[in-house]
């Protein structure tokens, strides 16, 4: 063969490869099945419920493994209802003993870890096993703080596991006084002291979802990719870094779509499927996608059913008056704003020698921040200034908090306070360092914004950009001076937010500010064991004001999430505690099938 022919052969081969890739909608295109298709933005770390702490992994896992309790899908305010439990727990008078009846006839998913491959019935002992796994130090669970010093005998069990040489040496039959199964269907939990949020914090949290002991023993360290739960779906494929798919669990018990919700739900179509057997779809596929352009294009192509609106796509979706653009209307895309129960802030390390003892300096920084401008620039005006740290959606939110004036933008006041701060410091203030937990465009723009605002009132600032792990390490080791962060409530109670200022939770705990106020601590210890009542609400508000007065952070905003969904994606009611909601969703297959024609016209 001469050179010309060789060259031609290579070109032809290359052309065949390229042509084979053309026409994505022909071979290999996804069939129009009753399968939900969603993007996942984070790195999945596995699906062993007790070990998880990242949002995306929990989201997937919550469809496979279930908890004793869950939040009602439709009712607002959020209401806790039984899931694997037969009913709400019976609580003793001293509020320290919880007796929980377990549903009968709930079976684990079929898996080869069971004898004959058939899933066995769920028992009360499975919950004890799950909590013990969190306590077992050999498992390195990130969820131990949930149970630390809470259940009678559990800390002793953890101590015992420290002495074991390996995971295999831990004896799970060892008795824990506060975790007992009085029979196969009754779980009794003894707490060391009252814990009013026990059900919402722990028993409705995916980390306590039972996983079959047989699976843990059968798969060993690979259990993270072989979850065996009782949920409506079971894991089909987890191609790490690419996608994860779950399919309907044929063993799933009879559970029905709720028949009642809040006013307006029927009109919105959220009760159209009332009484139908769950899950309504055959499966869910999450595609791991971290870049915004391909995610957006896939959504426009109809290959994702829903997604959160990204900052880069605001102009394409929303007009200045907040209405959808004509293109979005033609494509029958819906936009749902959702006020998530979140608070974001610029935090101060109260143990820092410059900031910690200089309240005027911290207040000056707070006055220097134009929060509304921040919201306009970074969230397209979609957000609310946070005047305190309790999110407005929570019951204990103080509606008069704005009048207290803790989030006012007043550069002149800031300059005055800086003079006072210099006196306290004993001279010119040193350069302040702001740690940013990312290096992406968003963080750089955010850092520049903060730097400019503080420089405008005469402060010298260095903004340090770092990757997330470095940032976390810096904050955890109390070496960050100023840092930006935020939190989303994990339950409808503000205790989540209040615990961030309790001194026993100093970094690496949730009190990243390393804030210490003995009076606050006393109140926190008091409210932590109080049942929900108006008195407790009053104390919550008092504690919030104490923190705002001391200013361990300049609280900036409560975020509003804009979610986009195609017209065919049904029962997509926004939920603040939304794990495991895939079983309620439905796809209108006819509408989805017709979308490609609609898209051609609009393109």
């Amino acid at each position: 063969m001469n050179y010309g022919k060789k060259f031609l052969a290579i070109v032809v081969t290359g052309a065949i490869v390229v042509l084979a890739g053309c026409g994505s909608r022909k071979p290999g295109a996804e069939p129009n099945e009753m399968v939900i298709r969603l993007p996942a933005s984070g790195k999945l770390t596995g699906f062993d419920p007790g070990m998880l702490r990242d949002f995306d992994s929990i989201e997937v896992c919550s469809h496979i493994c279930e908890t004793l309790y869950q939040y009602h899908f439709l009712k607002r305010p959020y209401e806790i209802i039984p899931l694997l439990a037969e009913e709400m727990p019976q609580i003793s008078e001293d509020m320290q003993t919880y007796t929980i009846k377990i549903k009968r006839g709930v079976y684990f998913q079929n898996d080869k870890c069971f004898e004959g491959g058939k899933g066995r019935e769920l028992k009360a002992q499975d919950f004890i096993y799950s909590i013990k796994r969190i306590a077992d130090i050999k498992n390195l669970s990130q969820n131990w703080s949930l149970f630390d010093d809470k259940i009678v005998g559990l800390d002793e069990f953890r101590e015992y596991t420290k002495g074991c040489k390996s995971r295999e040496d831990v004896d799970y039959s060892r008795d824990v006084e506060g975790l007992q199964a009085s029979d196969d269907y009754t779980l009794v939990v003894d707490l060391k002291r009252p814990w009013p949020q026990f059900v919402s914090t722990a028993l409705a949290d995916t980390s306590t979802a039972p996983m079959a002991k047989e699976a843990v023993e059968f798969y060993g360290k690979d259990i993270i990719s072989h979850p065996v739960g009782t949920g409506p779906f079971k894991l089909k494929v987890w191609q790490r870094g690419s996608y994860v798919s779950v399919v309907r669990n044929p063993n799933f018990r009879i559970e029905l779509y709720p028949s009642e919700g809040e006013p307006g739900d029927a009109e919105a179509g959220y009760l159209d499927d009332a009484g139908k057997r769950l899950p309504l779809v055959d499966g869910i596929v999450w595609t791991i996608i971290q870049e915004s352009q391909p995610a957006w294009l896939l959504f426009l192509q109809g290959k994702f059913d829903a997604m959160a609106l990204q900052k880069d796509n605001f102009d394409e979706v929303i007009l200045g008056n907040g209405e959808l653009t004509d293109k979005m209307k033609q494509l029958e895309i819906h936009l749902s704003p959702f006020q998530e129960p979140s608070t974001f802030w610029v935090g101060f390390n109260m143990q820092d020698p410059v900031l910690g003892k200089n309240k005027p300096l911290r207040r000056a920084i707070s006055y220097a921040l134009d929060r509304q401008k921040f919201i306009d620039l970074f969230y397209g005006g979609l957000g609310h200034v946070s005047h305190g740290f309790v999110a407005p959606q929570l019951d204990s939110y103080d509606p008069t908090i704005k009048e207290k004036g803790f989030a006012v933008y007043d550069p002149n006041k800031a300059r005055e306070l800086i003079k006072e701060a210099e006196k306290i410091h004993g001279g010119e203030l040193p350069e302040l360092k702001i740690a940013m937990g990312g290096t992406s465009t968003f963080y750089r723009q955010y850092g520049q914004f903060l730097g400019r605002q503080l420089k405008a009132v005469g402060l010298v600032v260095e903004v340090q950009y770092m990757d997330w792990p470095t940032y976390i390490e810096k904050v955890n080791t109390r070496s960050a001076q100023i840092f930006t962060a935020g939190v989303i409530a994990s339950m409808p109670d503000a205790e989540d937010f209040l615990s961030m200022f309790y001194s026993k939770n100093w970094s690496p705990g949730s009190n990243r500010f390393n804030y210490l106020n003995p009076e606050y601590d006393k109140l926190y210890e008091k409210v932590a064991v109080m049942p929900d009542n108006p008195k407790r609400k009053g104390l919550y508000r008092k504690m919030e004001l104490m923190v705002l007065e001391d200013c361990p952070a300049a609280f900036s905003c409560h975020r509003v999430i804009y979610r986009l969904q195609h017209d065919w994606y049904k029962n997509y009611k926004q939920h603040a505690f939304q794990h495991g909601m895939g079983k309620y969703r439905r796809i209108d297959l006819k509408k989805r099938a017709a979308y490609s024609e609609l898209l051609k016209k609009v393109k």
Partner: protein
Amino acid sequence: MTTYIIRRLVYTIPIVFGVLLLTFVLFTLVGGDISIEIAGKNATPETIEEIREEYGLNKPLFLSWDSQFINHFESALTFSFGRSRDRELVIDKIKRGVGPSLALTVPMFFGVLVISVSLSLFVAFVRGSVWDVLAVVICVAGMSIPYLSFILFGQYFFAYKWGLFPVFFSPGLTTAQYVALPVLIGIAAGIGGNLRFYRTVMLDEMRSDYVRTAFAKGLSPRRVLFKHVLKNAMIPIITRVVLAIPFLFLGSLLLERFFGIPGLGYLMVEAIGSRDYFVINAMTYISAILFVIFNLITDICYSFADPRVSLG
């Protein structure tokens, strides 16, 4: 030749040792203790200590047979690499990523090579003409446009707007389907720099006396270009080509991320983002080994391409 190869392989030992020492120092000493990070939020000191125990971070750094460095050395030599932070075996991650990465980089590599070398021969032959000027302009433009622009533009128009290719990886697609567009984009983005390089090499050869002699003897342009010029230009081509091969195994960071190709480039970006030193360390080590091997292959190829090169 055999003596030379053996000698070079022996030289490899201190190089590999150096790489291992360097990666160990970088990741262990400079990178700091990763146990706090693995422990996550609200971790107790006991959990952190347990993690140090599990990952062997509480062992002495050097001065012991059970030191961290000896363990690092042993795991590298046996290609075991242990488990990554998400508890999957590192070697399994690498094995899984090699296929998709090579499916992307190999066609891209050959595409760029064939097109660049062919075009360079052509423009060298018609040097000074409109075609040559046009090629230079394309080269400069190709080198000036950021790689990301090629990706964003290609993905938007070819995949979304005209629907010729899939926008992103999805479970139902064949490998050819999901790599086709990234391969084309990679070729388009890579041609500029390569064509410019090969054009310079070919022009150097075209100005040689033997080319003029060949034309004077009445040989056809095709024979002169393919038989003589190309053969004599092989040394710089081999250097560029063979040394690029190790990088094929590392995949393409941007293309894999934007098109969802689960390759080694994507794996590396993820590992860097989450400071998964176990993966970064393994990838660095494998890259170094491949680079050393392909360096040796380059030298051997020289002797085949040009008999004047002696490997004695």
